[in-house]
């Protein structure tokens, strides 16, 4: 029942997502830094594009790259304080423990979980990335997490 989804020419991928990825980067980084980050995001996507195995979840994939670029920009902005590691207040460590299991989730749940707990995207952004609503994104992430916890207990 799993059909291979054809990968579109890069032009179509870029044309269909460039507007919303720029909007996402502006929210994330502000106007001034969004443009360089936009260029970097699509250059990274282009570098990896020839190695894609299928065309599923391309939108979530694009958001994942954009988010990584945004994280890099933040890191450059705030070089780590010398001496101590800053205290971690986000939930990434918790996600890191589950990460090795995420690959087994259904595609939508996996994307929602990765974007939420791996990258701290808001449910509105995840909804946009997956082409669904904020509510649907919240639901996909929480059912993904439930599934992960069950697996963890096994």
């Amino acid at each position, binding site marked *: 029942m799993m059909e291979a989804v054809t990968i579109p*020419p*890069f*032009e179509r991928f*870029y044309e269909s997502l460039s507007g*919303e990825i*720029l909007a996402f980067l502006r929210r994330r980084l502000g106007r001034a830094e969004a443009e360089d980050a936009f260029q970097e995001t*699509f250059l990274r996507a282009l570098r990896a594009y*020839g190695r894609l195995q299928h065309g599923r979840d391309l939108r979530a994939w694009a958001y994942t790259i954009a988010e990584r670029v945004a994280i890099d920009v933040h890191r450059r902005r705030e070089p780590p304080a010398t001496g101590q590691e800053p205290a971690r207040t986000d939930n990434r460590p918790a996600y890191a423990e589950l990460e090795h299991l995420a690959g087994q989730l259904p595609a939508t749940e996996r994307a929602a979980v990765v974007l939420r707990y791996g990258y701290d995207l808001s449910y509105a952004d995840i909804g946009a990335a997956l082409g669904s609503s904020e509510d649907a994104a919240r639901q996909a992430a929480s059912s993904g997490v439930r599934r992960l916890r069950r697996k963890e207990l096994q």
Partner: protein
Amino acid sequence: MTVSADLDLRFRAAAAAAGLLDVAYDLVDSPLGPLLVAATPRGVCRISFDPEPEEEAETLARRFGLRVLRAPLDGPRRELDEYFEGRRETFELDVDLSTVAPFNRRVLEELARVPYGTTTTYGLLAERSERPRAARAVGMVMNRNPVPIVLPCHRVVGSTGKLVGYGGGLDRKEMLLRLEGALA
């Protein structure tokens, strides 16, 4: 949100400059209407009349790789502009015929030697391609020429001198031959 034209162009130019594209294509205005011109890192691989860019992008992706992007093609654009202004008789552009079948490639390479402002016939081109009885097959190769204008299939006419046929339509063949002074 729409991406500004400036940012969009900067990305496309950067992608091409970084050597990340399997194919770059661009639309070039000409007296024959807009032309879609496409190039791989090896050279120009496609020129099409009355282009439908979305379909062309799909075809190019199947043939040359998925990393197909519209991007400025300054070299081909300049040479085509000069040609249409009557300031250029030979193209210096590299041509990528890597996906063309061997017989077709042989014929297209012979075709490239037909001088500006002259015509030849399907039969003569067949002879020069060492397949003297293949005039009809040569006609098919002309019809499927992936890079018209640069590879001058418009200079090939029937044995009686009639223009016979052209992938882009006979009107365009006539215009090109008039431009070159090969038709009164």
